[in-house]
């Protein structure tokens, strides 16, 4: 156990020195916070491995040695409340398809990666939170007023990522005549959108807002703002985790002290996107 930690630390140190960049610690929460909130045994010692997206601007994005985005900032806040300092957090890339696997095999301790709470997923993993309620929405060209919702997509070209259910849902439930293009990532979809080859990109509204907030896309695309599903973003935890209560307490505190609003505005506010206030900020559900 002890040697394992040493190896991890050494590896992390080696990585840092190899990439030749010192990580700048401009974190929003002070890293000196003591482990007062920690309820799990030895929570303030060692490192916590947190799964995030590396490729979604505005939510979870890796830029050199810096990690940015709403999910990342929420993760930092929660980890701090659990007693982990900034230097004790290790971020791990968690693409959608790998999230259950990463938790089940203990490669990560928790996941903040646009992870919707569903009954099917609850069979294999546990969830803390939710810390945000997103909804499926559409991203369209800034000057396009013809698409107001999924029903308007009849005969139009729609882009989403491979293996995603959200695009299929539109085809099944709203507009059967939609042409579906599946791409490896959302950025590819946005490129096709700005060139006018597809008419809309679909996924959760906050992800779209993150894409729209990218400087190069500003003014070219907009989020329609008519969400037609409810996605409760939770904190993914291993099935036997005892951290759920502490995480929910941290999330409640984050919402109450105004940090939540601040983080949301900082990360995706530039797109003009406003979170659905009927559902947000959410109340963390009871832990099972």
């Amino acid at each position, binding site marked *: 156990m002890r040697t394992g930690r040493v190896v991890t630390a050494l590896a992390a140190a080696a990585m840092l020195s190899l990439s030749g960049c010192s990580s700048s610690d401009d974190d929003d929460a002070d890293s000196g916070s003591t482990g007062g909130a920690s309820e799990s045994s030895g929570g303030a010692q060692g490192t916590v491995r947190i799964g995030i997206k590396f490729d979604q601007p505005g939510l979870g994005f890796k830029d050199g040695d810096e990690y940015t985005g709403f999910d990342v900032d929420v993760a930092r806040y929660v980890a701090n409340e659990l007693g982990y300092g900034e230097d004790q957090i290790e971020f791990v890339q968690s693409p*959608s*398809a790998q999230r*259950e*696997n990463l938790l*089940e095999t203990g490669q990560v301790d928790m996941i903040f990666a646009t992870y919707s709470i569903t009954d099917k997923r609850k069979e*294999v993993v546990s969830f803390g939170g939710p810390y945000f309620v997103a909804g499926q929405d559409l991203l369209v060209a800034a000057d396009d007023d013809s698409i107001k919702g999924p029903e308007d997509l009849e005969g139009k*070209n729609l882009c989403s990522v*491979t*293996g995603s259910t959200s695009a299929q849902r539109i085809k099944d439930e709203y507009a059967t005549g939609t*042409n*579906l*293009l*599946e*791409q*490896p990532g959302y950025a*590819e979809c946005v*490129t*096709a959108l700005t*060139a*006018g*080859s*597809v008419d809309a990109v679909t996924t959760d509204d906050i992800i779209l807002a993150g894409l729209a907030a990218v400087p190069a896309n500003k003014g070219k695309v907009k989020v329609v703002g008519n969400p037609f599903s409810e996605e409760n973003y939770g904190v993914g935890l291993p099935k036997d985790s005892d951290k759920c209560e502490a995480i929910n307490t941290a999330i409640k505190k984050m919402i109450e002290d105004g940090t939540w609003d601040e983080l949301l505005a900082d990360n995706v506010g530039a797109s003009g996107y406003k979170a659905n206030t009927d559902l947000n900020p959410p109340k963390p559900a009871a832990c099972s």
Partner: protein
Amino acid sequence: MDDGYLQQYVSLFEEFDVIGAFWVNIQLTVYAGILGLVLGTVLATMRISPVPSLRWAGSAYVTVFRNTPLTIIMVFCVLGLWGQLGWTLSPDFTTNFFRFAVVALTVYHAAFFCEALRSGVNTVPIGQAEAARAIGLSFLPAARLVILPQAFRGSVAPLGNVLIALIKNSTVAAAAGVAEAAGLMKTMIEFRPDVILAIFLTFAFGFVVLVVPVGMATTALSRRLAVVR
């Protein structure tokens, strides 16, 4: 427990069209194989032609396309040619991307077909070329009637290798939005992480079934067709 696993496994096939996905890979392979071989032959002819600029163009083509990851070529075909330039290869939305995937696989593997053929050209003894010239054939007839037929026979094995690579690389078509086996595997793993090992073995086995006969056939063919010298 074992019984349940088996049932879970069988239910996969009802839920997902695995055979259909592999059929897409086979179609991609056949179309790109034929087109790639044609383009590869043209390139190989260019690379041994008397015109320096054609030789240069041929080798430039091979250098560029052989050294670029296929995924990037695939993305450029879709996002570049279709997404930016607005080219369409078919009025039908799905067919359009299938054809772009075929184009990407073709231009990539043509470089490899070309190199395989060139290695076949190297097995043709110089005497054959000299004899062709001696009876008055100019370059193109000599290539068409004497050199290339023998080169094809001499390069069946390397051509077979390219074909095998093509079968496996057809999985990259997922990047062009084509619903094929690798994409389906990803979807299946996402929806049914409980039977992940079975899913993997199914797809691995599917490729073994596709690839091994091709390998054996080309090996047998290369021995039958080998020009005895």
